[in-house]
């Protein structure tokens, strides 16, 4: 390149009409828009292709599969709404649905409360606070099977330390935990809260950094005590984080599978059978992929409705 090139202007001829000039302008703008669009697409294309191949297509496939009878080997047979009719009449589905809600009702508020409490406590400038933070986060990165095995040992009905402690406190008949219909779900909830609290604590800790220190100063000057500062400064300041964390815990609660599979396998009886497990059992074990897809569609709709409600509530509270 030599010196600065003269600015490129659209060629204007003496006899050209103003209309023709506008048309040329428009054409150039259109070309530019198209080029920008192409550039934009080329940026998101690799990501989109991955999303399409690994998420979108399987989701649409599962949706279509819910209307078929398919054993993964023979040709799928279109059965219309049969799978959904079966779902309606399947006592396993209703048991799994009820158990999933039971689990979520215990897991969501407990995890939220415990992780928020931990975050507030460990947000103080204390000696060894980093070690404590790491210790609470540790269960989250531990293998889930190890977590399940350890909790099964802790909660063992006769020789587990938990029941031995309860006996020491004078409890005559400590719970049978995972072998009892009434206590198996609480046992799962305890284990899962223990595992998840560290992760959500980290999110809350990050959220706490965004609450302006001046607000605490102002509150203090107005004579607010620790509880009032928490209620009137911390909680409102954490609202976006709380919303995000609640949505995340809710979705993960409804999708729970691994911990249940390892700790109780849905038992005793079907007292801890959850929807994801029913999907696995029907699809992979029994080879009824059509019916499993119908159950997964039901689970998807439940998650969708609950998330939409949460977003609506969040919007309303922001107004």
């Amino acid at each position, binding site marked *: 390149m030599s010196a600065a090139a003269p600015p490129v202007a659209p060629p204007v001829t003496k006899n050209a009409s103003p209309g023709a000039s506008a048309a040329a302008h428009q054409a150039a703008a259109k070309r530019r828009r198209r080029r920008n669009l192409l550039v934009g697409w080329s940026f998101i294309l690799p990501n989109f292709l991955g999303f399409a191949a690994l998420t979108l297509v399987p989701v649409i496939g599962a949706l279509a599969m819910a209307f078929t009878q398919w054993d*993964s*080997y*023979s040709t799928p047979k279109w059965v219309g709404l049969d799978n959904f009719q079966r779902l309606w009449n*399947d*006592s*396993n589905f209703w048991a799994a649905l009820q158990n999933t809600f039971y689990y979520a009702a215990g897991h969501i508020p407990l995890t939220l409360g415990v992780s928020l409490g931990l975050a507030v406590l460990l947000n103080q400038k204390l000696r060894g606070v980093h070690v404590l933070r790491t210790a609470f986060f540790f269960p989250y990165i531990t293998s889930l099977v190890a977590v399940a*095995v350890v909790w*099964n*040992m802790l*909660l*063992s*009905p*006769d*020789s*587990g330390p938990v029941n031995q402690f309860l006996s020491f406190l004078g409890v005559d008949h400590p719970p*049978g*935990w*995972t*072998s*009892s*219909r009434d206590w198996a779900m609480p046992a799962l909830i305890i284990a899962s809260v223990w595992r998840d609290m560290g992760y959500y604590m980290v999110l809350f800790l990050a959220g706490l950094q965004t609450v302006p220190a001046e607000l605490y100063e102002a509150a203090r000057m107005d004579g607010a005590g620790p509880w009032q500062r928490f209620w009137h400064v911390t909680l409102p300041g954490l609202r976006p984080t709380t919303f995000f964390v609640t949505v995340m815990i809710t979705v993960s609660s409804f999708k729970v599978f691994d911990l249940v599979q390892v700790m109780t396998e*849905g*038992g*005793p*009886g*079907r007292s801890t059978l959850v929807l994801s497990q029913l999907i696995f*059992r029907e699809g*992979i*074990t*029994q*080879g009824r992929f059509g019916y499993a897809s119908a159950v997964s569609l039901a689970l998807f709709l439940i998650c969708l409705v609950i998330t939409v409600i949460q977003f609506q509530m969040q919007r309303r509270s922001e107004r």
Partner: protein
Amino acid sequence: MKLKKSLARIAPLVVATALTATACDASGTDSSSSSDGKTVVKVALWNYKTTPEFKALIDGFEAKNPDIDVQPVDILADSYPDKVTTMLAGGDTTDVLTMKNVTDYARYATRGQLLPLTDEATKLDKASYSGLDDYNLKGKYYALPYRSDFWVLFYNKDMTGKADMSKLTWDDYAKLAKQFTKGSGSDKVYGTYLHTWRSVVQAISSAQTGGDQLGGDYGFFKDQYDMALGLQKAKAVLPFSAASSNQITYDSQLTTGKAAMVPMGSWWAAALLAEKQQGKNDINWGMAPMPQIKSDGKTVTFGSPTAFAVNKKAKNADAAKKFVTWASGPEGAAAVAKIGVTPAYTSDKILDTFFSVDGMPTDALSRTAMQPTTVKLEMPVSDKTSDIDQILKEEHELIMSGEKSVDAGIKEMDKRVKDEVQ
């Protein structure tokens, strides 16, 4: 410039073709014959290194047939049925498929994925085979069993002393279990151990009463449940809830001297021998016939055979058939008996081989245990088997953990099987 454009257009095609070609090559691990001209027979099996019967059969067959090279296709035991189902769905050409259970066998055979072996099966001396009839699908056979496990009563000789265990009824067994129970706290040893599987109670009552596990009427389970729960109440057996929450293994109960008697499948003998050889345990064990409901001198127990089948898409079907027939015959039986595995084909000679394995108990009682009068199939084969199995398992857990009474549990089994499956 033009060349660049053309290259840009062609390049993806070239890459795609290259990838496809590579993929073809990878999947077509082909070759129906090896580099030294031998016919290759590929056998789908599980946990090759820890399941010595496969090596014994392959080595034995190759020694007799030097022109055939048998190659194992090793699959993890837990995912074996799923993997084989997927392989067959994808048109896999592995020649021989091991049939881990009869339910999967029925599924593959009825879908037309296995080659008929009816000619080979009819040539066999049925009287000498255990489990052959379980492969009869409307007069046709698609697999031949090479091993047949059945349940016996394993016991610790040092803990049972001179007790006569040759013709036990379940009442006798319960009395002995109480008698052998000793100590308390961490020193406690139980008279027996009943593993958490539903078969321990349900399959044995089905086999010995003739009750149908697919029938939807499960009153025939009652006596056996009463016996098992009675032992639990008498504290002569580790409670079901403790065994299931602690994920107790049956092996540890016998080999660490925690239980004197353990009803279990004959496959355990080979594992106990291997452990002894590796110095993992030094237990003085023996086998007795399964206790009986009726004391008519007959031994009725339950079990399940394991078989080889030939893939309909096998590359070398003839050589594959040769391997399957050999493995299920006297020579294959001798090869597996040599390592303490119970073959489907039995004769006095084979039994001698089985009992001559180093470490195998050679007493008369163990020998009697290995010759039951009747071996019933653990669970009948039907398209409803797996659904009913799930319901029976769930209710079994509730009865054994004391969450439901025997009557309420059986009533629920009847109701659920009728409402949900039949």
